[in-house]
Structures are given as structure tokens and as C-alpha cells.
């Protein structure tokens, strides 16, 4: 159903996409019209043989004063897909989502959600989408059930507030004031409110930011349930685990640009079949020398640690220890892990996601 190809630069995009020969002509036209990140060093072409995308974003730009928040963001989301925008704080995730929700206007670019232009058809769009903002606030003295009932009455299509209370585990808090809810309960209410109009597309902006692990996992369960219901969901996150666990596809975004796009598995394959070995040394070592060690595909210095990507970890570790002994150096710590989206981000930007 889906093909993802990494291409080294924008010039090659056209060449690569022209080389892709999907089974049907319709697919080919979709592929050629597929929004592709421009001006990016690394990107993926997604080829769908499905219906037209329910969210289309093409070459979106947005500037706040001197800050260029978005520099040509492009991607598409298919109906029933859980799509993640993964990136560090300030990458442009929230700006993108808020433009899609109709809360902000883009400086340039083309956006379509459910076939509607969020800037010009904002009111119609609001009936089709549900959104949980990065931080939702309600009047302190508003009760939980009141909030759901009030907001549901603004829509043509609506869900039963009692059913939403049950689904989000807020039954016991139905008569509680908003100010008396915990952070997790407030967030669950925000997600429940996003569903009051039974929307076609959901936007969750950092749905688990600042929550403790237990509450975070409760929210993951809710999102997975929505996924099973084939709801289209676009969520932004800076948590690797969240993107890997919940998303069908992920767009990695940094400095207002999409730098990679594909399913988590495809993106991780970008790092090849390597294992990440992160070491801290007693004294600094030459990066170039570490790169020469057996099995090492890549070596970078991140936060004073050396991050090696190795195709043969045991041999690399043995070679590393020998190299350090020969130079009178010592290992302070060593961690090994299979590649994650963090590694993809690191490889593409030279920085950690949380930086």
C-alpha cells in the first residue's frame, strides 16, 4: 500500500518519483502530486494507492517577526491514519496544527482538511474536526459534564456526553469543577471535548506533555482505541515512544522543515541494521579513530558522549576496549540500544530530539 523512499536532496525527488511505477495510473498521479518536502536534505516520498488525502499540506510557510517558524512544510494524511508530527520544541509542529485547525493563517502554501480551506471555510471545518490544544483551559467553576454538554450543543453532529465521560474514565468527576481536576483528568477532558461532535479528523497537540508516565499510558490506550475505530488523527509529540507506538506514519520536523517522513519502521530502517552504542570516555578520543573501529558505520559526539552505529556490536566493543587500552583511556559508561526515531533524528540533525 505504501512505499517510502529516502532521497538525498530535493533535486533527486523528481527523478525518484518518476521512477516509481505504481500498479494503477491513478496511483501514479497521486504519487506525482504527493506533497513532498522541499529544500530538505533527506526526505521520503510516500506513494498511496488510496483515496485523496483527508489532510493536504503543501509548501506551508509561516513567520513570526524575525523567526521563520515554517519553511515549506508538506505532507498528506489519509483517512483512518494516525499521523505524527515528531520534533523538538519550537520545530513548528504547533504552528502547523494550528494552521490546519484554522486558528492561524499561513503566510503561503496550500492547506486542505476534509476538502475545506481552514482559512476561508473555518466555520464549516469546525463541524468536521475535533482538537485538543497543547494546553486546554476552561472556566474554573465549570463542571465536567457541563463542559461536555455545552460544547456538544454547538455542533450539528454530537455524541452523548455520558458516553464520553465513561470512555475517558471521568464518570466519578462528572460534577467536579474544572479547577478541582488533576492534570491528567484535565487532559482526558480535553480529549473527550475533542470528540463531542464525532469529528472526521482529530488534532491532538502534545496530548501527553507534562503528564506522569501512568497517565501518559492511559492516554495512549485512548488513542489506540481511536486508531482501532479508524479515526483520522494528527498528533504532535516530542516523545519518541509516543510516535513509535501510536503512529502509522510520522513526519520528523525540525526548524520548520519536514526532514523525514514514513512509518516508524521505515524511518528506523534509515539507520540500517545497526545498533547504537553510546559511550562516555574518561578522556576525549579522536572521532575519526572511533569511526575506523570494526563494524562502525558512523560516529558522532552528542552531549560529550560518543554515539557509534555498529553493524557488528560485539566486535565493535572489543575493538573499542582495545583502542582505549592502547591509548591509556577508559570507558566511563556504555549503553547499547536498537535504533529508534531518536537515532533517525540524530542522524539527520546531529542533535538529540530533546535538545
Amino acid at each position, binding site marked *: 500500500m505504501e512505499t517510502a523512499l529516502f532521497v538525498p536532496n530535493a533535486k533527486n525527488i523528481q527523478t525518484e518519483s518518476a521512477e516509481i511505477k505504481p500498479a494503477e495510473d491513478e496511483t501514479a498521479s497521486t504519487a506525482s502530486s504527493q506533497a513532498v518536502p522541499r529544500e530538505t536534505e533527506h526526505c521520503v516520498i510516500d506513494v498511496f494507492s488510496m483515496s485523496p488525502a483527508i489532510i493536504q499540506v503543501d509548501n506551508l510557510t509561516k513567520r513570526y517577526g524575525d523567526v521563520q517558524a515554517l519553511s515549506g512544510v508538506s505532507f498528506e494524511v489519509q483517512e483512518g491514519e494516525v499521523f505524527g508530527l515528531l520534533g523538538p520544541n519550537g520545530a513548528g509542529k504547533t504552528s502547523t496544527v494550528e494552521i490546519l485547525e484554522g*486558528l492561524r493563517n499561513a503566510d503561503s502554501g496550500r492547506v486542505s482538511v476534509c476538502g475545506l480551506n481552514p482559512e476561508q471555510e473555518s*466555520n464549516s471545518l*469546525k463541524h468536521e474536526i475535533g482538537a485538543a*490544544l497543547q*494546553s486546554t483551559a*476552561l472556566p474554573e467553576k465549570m463542571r465536567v459534564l457541563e463542559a461536555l454538554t455545552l460544547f456538544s450543543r454547538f455542533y450539528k453532529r454530537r455524541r452523548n456526553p455520558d458516553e464520553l465521560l465513561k470512555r475517558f474514565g471521568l464518570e466519578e468527576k462528572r460534577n467536579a469543577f474544572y479547577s478541582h481536576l488533576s492534570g491528567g483528568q484535565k487532559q482526558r477532558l480535553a480529549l473527550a471535548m475533542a470528540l463531542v461532535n464525532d469529528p472526521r479528523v482529530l488534532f491532538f497537540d502534545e496530548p501527553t506533555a507534562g503528564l506522569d508516565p501512568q497517565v501518559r499510558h492511559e492516554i495512549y490506550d485512548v488513542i489506540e482505541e481511536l486508531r482501532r475505530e479508524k479515526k483520522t488523527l494528527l498528533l504532535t509529540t516530542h516523545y519518541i515512544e509516543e510516535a513509535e507506538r501510536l503512529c502509522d506514519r510520522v513526519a520528523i520536523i525540525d526548524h520548520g522543515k519536514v526532514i523525514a517522513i514514513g512509518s516508524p519502521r521505515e524511518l528506523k530502517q534509515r539507520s540500517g541494521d545497526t545498533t547504537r552504542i553510546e559511550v562516555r570516555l574518561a578522556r576525549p578520543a579522536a572521532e575519526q579513530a572511533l569511526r575506523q573501529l570494526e563494524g562502525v558505520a558512523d560516529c558522532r559526539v552528542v552531549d560529550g558522549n560518543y554515539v557509534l552505529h555498529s553493524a557488528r556490536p560485539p566486535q565493535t566493543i572489543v575493538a573499542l576496549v582495545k583502542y582505549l587500552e592502547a591509548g591509556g583511556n577508559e570507558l566511563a559508561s556504555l549503553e547499547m540500544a536498537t535504533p529508534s526515531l531518536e537515532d533517525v533524528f540524530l542522524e539527520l540533525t546531529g542533535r538529540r530530539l530533546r535538545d
Partner: protein
Amino acid sequence: MRHTWKLTLSRMRLAMRNRAFLFFSLIMPLAFLFVAMGIFARGLVNATSYILGPVLALTVMGSFWGLSIQLVIFREQGILRRFRLAPIGPGAMLASSILSNYFLTLPTVIIEFALARWFFHLQSWGNLWAVLALVTLGTVTFAALGLTVASVTNTMQETQIINNLIWTVFLFLSGATVPLPRLPSWIQKLALFLPPTYLVEGLQRALTERDITLWDLRTELLALAGGTIFSFWVSQQLFRWEPEQKVSRRAKVWAASTIVPFILLGVWEYSHGPLLRNSKSAFDTLREAQPSPDRTR
């Protein structure tokens, strides 16, 4: 319209749960009624009618403070942002704010009337339809003026400073606290350009003049109706959902322009109008005031 009504009911519920709202919209006006009547209308029957005018006016004018502060709090806390995601517009948000305030102000006005009657021997109800019309238009005008201020201020502190400045002018230069005929001549002329002057003077006439009709109060009613329409329109145009939405210089000019209807009316009143004369006639009723048969302690 349906959304406005749902929002109005919700805002009324929220306000009823807010102790600060109950204090400022019920307890304080009633305290002011007792203080004003106790000091100025002690034992003078006609004075009760005359003093009740500014007491009601101040109750109505309270919407200026309450709604502007509420709007800024909602914007600062991101509450407006959540409402913005729903298919409702600035008109519904503002109208519900004004309507809920109006419905919650009416009981205070009625209680003030009742207390004036039973505690301070109010002899005549005046023209109740005129009082209702003035209270209605006054509430909406001052609420919309407050919402206009909130549209061009960014923080609570800024709103309080600007509100205080405007409120001081409204309070002391319009006859709301000191009877207009007792103020220096130049202040009386300045008062012709201020919205509360028309509310205070209209209420005093509606309460003190026998057989007064709505037509007799056309200047006051028109002034407040004009203020209502223009201020509401401007506040709707300048409405901001987000704290970071910048306030343009043009928006500030529009906000300042809400005083334009009153400047035009003030110019007309200054050259042709009977407001100051009427105000003096109403004030003169105090001279005819008779001690009440049963003095209030």
C-alpha cells in the same frame, strides 16, 4: 442565536458560583444604596426618588468593570482559545457575556427598588417602563464599552489601569456621585460628553418627574441606544481570541471612537439640548422634599 442562548445560560451559572461576582454585583450595590439613602435621603421622601437614580445607575455601570476583566482573564488563561475551536463567533461570545450580565443585574435593580420602597419610603415608582428601558440600554452600553477596552488591552494590569481612569471620570464627572447641578459649570458642560450622564439623568427624571413618558426621555434613550449599537459593533470588530494577537493602532483608534456618538450628542446638547435644565429641575425636587412620616433609622 441558539449558541448565544446556551452560552448565556452557562455564563450565568458560572457567575452565580463566583463569590467575587456576587459581592460586586449584589452586596456592593446594596451597601451603596444604604449609605447613599442613609446620608442624603434621610427622612426626605422626594430625595429618595432622586438618590435612587444614581444608585441604580451605578449598579448598571458595574457591567463596565465586570465584563472587561472577565474577557481579559478568559483570553489570558486560554479559555477563549478553546471556545474558538467550536463553531461560535465573537458575536455570540460578546452577546452572551452582555446578556448574562443583564439578567443577573436585573434582580439587584429590583431588590434596590424594593428596599427603597420599604426602607426609605419611596413614594412613587416613577415610570417603570422608562426605568427598565434605561437600565437595559445602560447595561448593554457600559458592558460593550468595557468589552471594547478589553479588546485593546493585553493584560489584567493594563485593563485595570485604563478601567480605573475611565471609571473615575464616569463616577465623579457625570452626576453619578455628586448631583450634576452641584458641580462647577465647566464640569457640567464636560458631563454632556459622557455616557453615564445620560443614564443618571434619565433615571433621575424617570423616577422623580410625574407623568413622564418615554418620548420625554428620547434624548437619554437615544444616547444610550446609539452607544449600545456602536460600542457593541466596535467590540465585535476588535474582539481577540488570543493573547498574542497584536493590537493595531487602528484598533485603538476604533476603540477610542466609541465615544464619538456621545461627542456628537454632547455638542448638540451644549448648543440646543435641555439636559442640564432638566437635571436642575430634577434636583429642585429636593427643595420640595418633605420629611417622611416615619424616619428611617
